[in-house]
């Protein structure tokens, strides 16, 4: 009976942890199989332990090239989407203007549209314009679909800002540029950083829109897609595991820093 009561009280915790397990299971498999030595071309069955792939992560033709291309595209797309998105969020929160409803739906719709629809329609545009598919078309597409997510992230932060802080700065004779760079931007920075991080993750991992608009250019997700048809090298798992570890380290480091700051303030 005591056990039943314990179970009842902790049912939510148990169910939640099971879901977490479901979320993490593939990552565990990816990590374990990065130490595999597969017999055939596909790395789906466990054979024997080996660190070959970790010693030679770029040993597969074209993989590291596609990885660096993906990083470049993600960086530029993040930069573009964050700049454009931040400007839009400030306009939405701080100013009155015409056609607000239309603009709001223009920002909402890309998020409410299946990727394959955006991908296919953008490809029709590029085909009609006779554009050369490649780096630039991918970048254009990525900025387009990251933009709305940046707006949402930045807008939330700007909305919670106290406008009196800027008024105070101006009362203290700060010019508009000084006010923006010394007061507004530092306060909005966490929102902008969150938006930029989201844009980077979305762009780096995008497959569907890229697949339609890349032509013969191969980004990292497209390399993995091709590998899934031709044969999956163990190095893919090495990259996957490394990305997971780097991301966790980044987030933990960020948390430690922000914890210290709050402690210093207190």
């Amino acid at each position, binding site marked *: 009976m005591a056990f039943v009561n314990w179970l009842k009280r902790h049912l939510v915790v148990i169910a939640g942890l099971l879901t977490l397990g479901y979320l993490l299971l593939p990552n565990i498999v990816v990590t374990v199989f990065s130490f595999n030595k597969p017999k055939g071309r596909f790395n789906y069955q466990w054979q024997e332990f080996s660190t070959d792939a970790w010693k030679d992560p770029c040993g597969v033709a074209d993989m590291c090239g596609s990885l660096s291309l993906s990083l470049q595209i993600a960086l530029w797309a993040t930069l573009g989407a964050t700049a454009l998105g931040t400007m839009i969020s400030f306009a939405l929160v701080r100013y009155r203007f015409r056609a607000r409803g239309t603009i709001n739906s223009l920002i*909402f719709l890309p998020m409410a549209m299946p990727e394959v*629809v955006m991908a296919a329609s953008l490809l029709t545009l590029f085909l009609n314009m006779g554009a050369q598919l490649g780096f630039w078309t991918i970048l254009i597409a990525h900025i387009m679909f990251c933009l709305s997510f940046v707006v949402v992230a930045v807008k939330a932060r700007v909305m919670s800002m106290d406008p009196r802080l800027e008024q105070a700065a101006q009362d203290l004779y700060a010019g508009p540029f000084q006010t923006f760079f010394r007061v507004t931007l530092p306060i909005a920075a966490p929102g902008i950083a969150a938006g930029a991080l989201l844009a980077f993750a979305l762009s780096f991992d995008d497959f569907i829109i890229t697949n339609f608009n890349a032509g013969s250019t191969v980004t990292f997700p497209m390399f993995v897609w091709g590998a899934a048809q031709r044969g999956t090298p163990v190095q893919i798992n090495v990259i996957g595991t490394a990305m997971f570890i780097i991301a966790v380290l980044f987030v933990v480091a960020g948390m430690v820093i922000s914890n210290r700051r709050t402690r210093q303030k207190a």
Partner: protein
Amino acid sequence: MAAVTRAPAPPAPAAPQQKPPRKRGRLTPYWLLLPGILWLVVFFALPMIYQASTSVQTGSLEEGYKVTWHFVTYWDALSEYWPQFVRSVLYAASATILCLLLGYPLAYLLAFRAGRWRNLLLILVIAPFFTSFLIRTLAWKTILADGGPLVGALNALHVLDVTSWLGWTSGDRVLATPLAVVCGLTYNFLPFMILPLYTSLERIDARLHEAAGDLYARPVTTFRKVTFPLSMPGVVSGTLLTFIPAAGDYVNADLLGSTDTRMVGNVIQTQFLRILDYPTAAALSFILMAAILAMVTVYIRRSGTEDLV
């Protein structure tokens, strides 16, 4: 905005940047909006129009396409590919319901029961995102492999007999069946359910739970009458963020499914990139877009959360 006008008076009103702030402020929002909105108009809205026009064109790759208002394409596309449409909606709906059932406990745990473990658990929810989703989806091929430990266990427990009878799996296989595709879709879009749920649950004042308890509500009643209604915004945005991408997805159906589990995304992809039948592909994509928009509008109207942006 009265205080804004108290900025130092400009010495030379002729220069456009030095006009009084209020006048400059009138055009500022348009300058701020212009580049981003232009980008969305040219690369999001305009393509939609191009697509609509392509869908009513006839012709061939060699001779070029002309707008002939050939609406029959829509009829042909629908009558040929309606099974894939139905399948997309069914799979996406199942995945969304599963995401809600699996994601709610975890979001609840994060919001109310995690204590000092909260940050660590949040990291564990978000971190998988950083491994390419294609790599993670391929990992399901290993997990659900024929004769693997999971499938063996399900077989021993006669679970697969039930799911085969329902038509979700076939024989003693899970891979290349609808169950595998729905499992992959659920997995891939689960964080999009958990995070909005967590955000809206976290906003709930914990004292409301105490108040409900003080008024003799049992935990189940508290959940049904207090917690769940207050988490509705999270449920609505989570459902949309899961259903929409799941309905248009073709990656899971391709990697984990078979030719019998093809969804509408697969059809659009093949028509566009391999068969190069642009009018049919555009028509299918247009139908998918219209269907999703209609569903989203109805759903948002009903659940009354209109400001999602």
